[in-house]
Structure formats: structure tokens, C-alpha cells
């Protein structure tokens, strides 16, 4: 078989870009916490890379894209360890179902999505969680929440255009697929709503950081936050333009929409906080960029660039307002995973129903697409919420979530990891005998 080498090269490049987003996220989050917990924050992202990098080839791919079981998951044993995923029984490389390139490239691309989605949750529960409990949570959550949602939306399950899916049940089918297909281009539901809801549920279970609402907990290193936002933006080209599954016009459109929405959202966030608080902050710029990127994620292939300006601006302004809600309602979503990813993910997923150039309400498409988008967003929220609650409760009653108050106040970096980002333990001397 002759592969489309352009598509193959672009998809491998995209996979690499998306993988870079997780270290980027580590900087984005790491800069936002206090100096005494930056290493723990970054380690939560790196830990997700470790756990999911292993799990994905074992059962992750199979649960996402293997043989469908009830529209909810793929059979984990079907392609366990990627058996039959890369080469068929005749020894030939298996082709992707999405483009004319080898399927193993899809595995590379998709593992990076599973990693970044799970890592996103860590920002909600910064500074206070046992590292072992986090690592166990990562493994269980990605298995029971991420893989099933990826299957439901992208693997032909309930939230896809499948004739057995919810959209088909509402508006019927045409030529064997849902007449009004749900649109989630690169993961508004699977990635952002999923992670945002999980963050909210965990925060409610785990509780606030000690001193929340009393002591100032301002970012300790804003250049890190800006660096992280820049890496996320760059990596997002793989995330969105790579989700065209080819080197083509859709990929180009997704690239342009991604940048346009991020730019508009940054401006909207800065204007909102300048009016409200009197300052256009660097934290606002970085957060605005991410809010726009989140919102355009489900919509990147379905909007016009002008539509993307509006979607990005709405996301930037709404998220800027939403990050203040935690003080009003008293939940310590430490780094605004709910305010940015849940709110931004909802703006994007529902916004598709208004702004999609072919089916959106503002383009004469009627209400059908909007209804489908609202339904998939709500189903994703309920699914993620219930699954996360169950996992969170089990961990709370077995391993426990919180580090000791002493460790939290003294600094989780030193207590849990035995190191500090900017200070050494001080004093003392080396007592290991050095052989000369």
C-alpha cells in the first residue's frame, strides 16, 4: 500500500506537538502555585505522562477504539497491548480508518490526548494531594472516564454520529449515520468538559487548601505561566490542526481558527479585567489564551475564522468572570480548571450549535445542531461527574487524598518529594564516604 506520506508526517508532527503540551501545562500550572509547591504541581503533569504512556498501549487504545461494547466502551482485550493494531495477521501495516496513513500513527496521536486531559485536572487540587493517590487516580480515571468518553465521541459510541447513538435517536438517520451529527472536532467534551467536571468533583471531595480565602495565594512565577501558555498554544496546533487527520484544507482552517480564537479570547479577558479590576495582567493574558484555545477545540474545523473571533471573545470574557465564582461559592478550584476548562469547553461545545458554518443557528441551520451539542455536553458532564465521584470516594476512603496539614503548610515539595525548587535544605554536610 502507498501511504500518504504528507498526512503521515503531519500526524506524527501533531502527536509530538500535543505531547509537548503536558510539560507546557506543567509550567503553566507550576508558575501559578506558591514557591513551596511548584515541583509537586509539575510532577503531577509528568506523573500523568508516565502512567498513561504505559497504560495507553496496554488497554487504552483498545478501550477507546476497539470493538464497541454497548456504545460506552471499546473492548479492552480486543487489541490489548496493541495486538493487531499495528500489523495485521499477514504482517502488513494496518491503515488508519481516518486517513491514508498507518494506524500506529493514530495511537501516537491519541495517547497524547489522554495524557494532557488527565493532567489538566491536577490544577484544581494543587498543593494538597498525596502523590501516590494522584498516580492511582490517574490510572483509574483515564481508564473509566477518559477512554469511555473518547470511545463514545470518537470511537463510534453513544455520542458519535453512529446510528445507535443519541443524536440518531433524536433526529433520526440519513444514509446510516445520524442526520444531525454531533460536532466535537478535537475534544470539547472528551477533553475539556471531562477534565473540568472531574476537577470540580475532586475539589468538592478533597476540600480547600489551608488558608484559602484568608491568605493570599498569588502565582509565584508569572514568567513560567506565560512560558506554559506559549507552549500550550504551540502544541495546540497539533491538537486542533492534527484533528483534521490529514495535511489538508481542514487542518489549515483549524490552525487559523485556533490562533484567531486564542487571540480574541486574550483581548476579551484583558479588557474584562481592566474594566473590573483596573489592571490588564499577565496571568489574564495567559489564561485568556488558554480559554480561547479550549473553546475553539470542539469547533476548530466547523467555524469560519470570523466566527472564531466571536467564539474566542465570548470564551475569554466569560472565563474571566467565571474564575471569580470559586470565592463566591467557596470551592477551592486552585488554578481555575473549572473556570477555564469546564466553562470554556461548554462555550465551545454549545457555541458550535450557533457558529458552525454549515449547521449553526446563526448561519440558518436551525436549532437541531444546537440541541445535539447541548445534549452531548450534558451527557459528558453527567458521565464524568458520576465516574469521578465514585473514584474519588474510593480513594478518599482507602489511600486518602490529603497530605498532613504540616506538610501542606510547610510545603509539599519538601515533604513529599524531598526537594525544593528554589531552596536547599541548608546546612549539614555530606556523610557518604567518597572513595578516592
Amino acid at each position: 500500500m502507498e501511504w500518504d506520506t504528507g498526512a503521515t508526517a503531519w500526524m506524527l508532527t501533531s502527536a509530538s506537538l500535543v505531547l509537548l503540551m503536558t510539560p507546557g501545562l506543567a509550567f503553566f500550572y507550576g508558575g501559578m502555585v506558591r514557591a513551596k509547591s511548584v515541583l509537586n504541581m509539575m510532577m503531577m503533569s509528568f506523573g500523568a505522562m508516565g502512567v498513561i504512556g504505559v497504560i495507553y498501549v496496554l488497554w487504552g487504545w483498545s478501550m477507546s477504539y476497539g470493538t464497541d461494547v454497548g456504545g460506552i466502551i471499546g473492548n479492552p482485550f480486543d487489541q490489548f497491548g496493541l495486538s493487531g493494531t499495528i500489523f495485521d495477521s499477514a504482517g502488513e501495516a494496518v491503515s488508519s480508518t481516518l486517513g491514508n496513513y498507518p494506524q500506529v500513527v493514530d495511537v501516537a496521536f491519541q495517547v497524547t490526548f489522554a495524557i494532557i486531559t488527565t493532567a489538566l485536572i491536577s490544577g484544581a487540587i494543587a498543593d494538597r494531594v498525596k502523590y501516590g493517590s494522584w498516580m492511582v487516580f490517574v490510572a483509574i480515571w483515564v481508564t473509566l472516564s477518559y477512554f469511555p468518553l473518547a470511545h463514545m465521541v470518537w470511537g463510534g459510541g453513544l455520542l458519535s454520529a453512529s446510528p445507535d447513538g443519541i443524536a440518531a435517536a433524536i433526529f433520526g438517520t440519513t444514509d446510516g449515520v445520524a442526520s444531525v451529527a454531533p460536532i466535537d472536532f478535537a475534544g470539547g467534551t472528551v477533553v475539556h468538559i471531562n477534565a473540568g467536571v472531574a476537577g470540580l468533583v475532586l475539589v468538592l471531595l478533597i476540600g480547600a487548601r489551608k488558608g484559602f480565602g484568608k491568605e493570599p495565594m498569588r502565582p509565584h512565577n508569572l514568567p513560567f505561566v506565560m512560558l506554559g501558555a506559549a507552549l500550550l498554544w504551540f502544541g495546540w496546533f497539533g491538537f486542533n490542526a492534527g484533528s483534521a487527520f490529514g495535511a489538508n484544507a481542514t487542518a489549515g482552517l483549524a490552525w487559523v481558527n485556533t490562533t484567531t480564537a486564542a487571540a480574541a479570547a486574550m483581548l476579551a479577558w484583558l479588557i474584562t479585567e481592566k474594566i473590573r479590576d483596573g489592571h490588564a495582567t499577565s496571568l489574564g493574558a495567559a489564561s485568556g489564551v488558554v480559554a480561547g484555545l479550549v473553546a475553539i477545540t470542539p469547533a476548530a474545523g466547523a467555524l469560519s475564522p470570523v466566527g472564531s473571533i466571536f467564539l474566542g471573545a465570548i470564551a475569554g470574557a466569560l472565563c474571566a468572570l467565571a474564575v471569580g465564582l470559586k470565592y463566591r461559592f467557596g470551592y477551592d478550584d486552585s488554578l481555575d480548571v473549572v473556570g477555564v476548562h469546564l466553562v470554556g469547553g461548554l462555550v465551545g461545545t454549545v457555541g458550535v450549535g450557533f457558529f458552525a458554518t454549515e449547521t449553526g443557528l446563526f448561519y440558518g441551520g436551525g436549532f437541531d445542531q444546537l440541541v445535539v451539542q447541548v445534549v452531548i455536553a450534558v451527557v459528558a458532564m453527567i458521565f464524568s461527574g458520576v465516574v469521578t465521584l465514585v473514584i474519588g470516594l474510593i480513594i478518599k476512603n482507602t489511600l486518602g487524598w490529603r497530605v498532613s496539614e504540616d506538610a501542606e503548610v510547610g510545603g509539599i515539595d519538601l515533604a513529599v518529594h524531598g526537594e525544593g525548587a528554589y531552596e536547599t535544605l541548608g546546612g549539614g554536610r555530606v556523610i557518604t564516604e567518597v572513595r578516592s
Partner: protein
Amino acid sequence: MKLVTGIIQPHRLDDVKSALEAAGVRGMTVSEASGYGRQKGHTEVYRGAEYTVDLVPKVRIEVLVEDEDAGVVTGVIVQAAQTGKIGDGKVWTVPVDDVARVRTGEHGAAAL
């Protein structure tokens, strides 16, 4: 001997330093400080949360002088640091028993 200590606005440091040099002061110690006075700082909003900022950045300037020069040096600092706005700072004087110059071991006025 006296120790004159001034807590001033950071942006007035250069002017105060020049004025002290012009007045014949040959040495001083400058350090960063933070604190508040009668107005107790201010409040500001950052990312949706309101904060009181009660420790405001200041500069501490310390000068060792002979007894009869203390009043002049205090006056020089006050004049050069003054903007007339809230937060201009304070200057005070305390007596000093002895001073030693490390390099030579001299004591008292000779060490100033």
C-alpha cells in the same frame, strides 16, 4: 555618635543619596524593607479576589554621624524624600555607644 535611620519611598532613594553626598556624608547602608504606617496599605483586586496589601515596599537608609550632625542629616533626608503624599516614610535618630572600623581597628569618631 548617632544612627540616623530613614524609611523612604524606593523611588526617592537616588535623590536622598545625592543630597546626603552633597551634604558631606561619606557612607551609608541601604536595604530593602517593607511595612505600613497609619494608612495601613491599600486593597486591590487580583483574579477575582480582593487583597489587602499592607506590607508596602520601602527602602531603609542608615547613616552614622557625629552628635552635632544628626539634625542636619535628618533634615537633608526629609527634604529629599518628601513628596507630600501618603507613604513618604519616617526618619529617626538613636544614640550609638561605639563604632569600630574593621579594616584598622579604630574606634569612636575616628571610625566614622
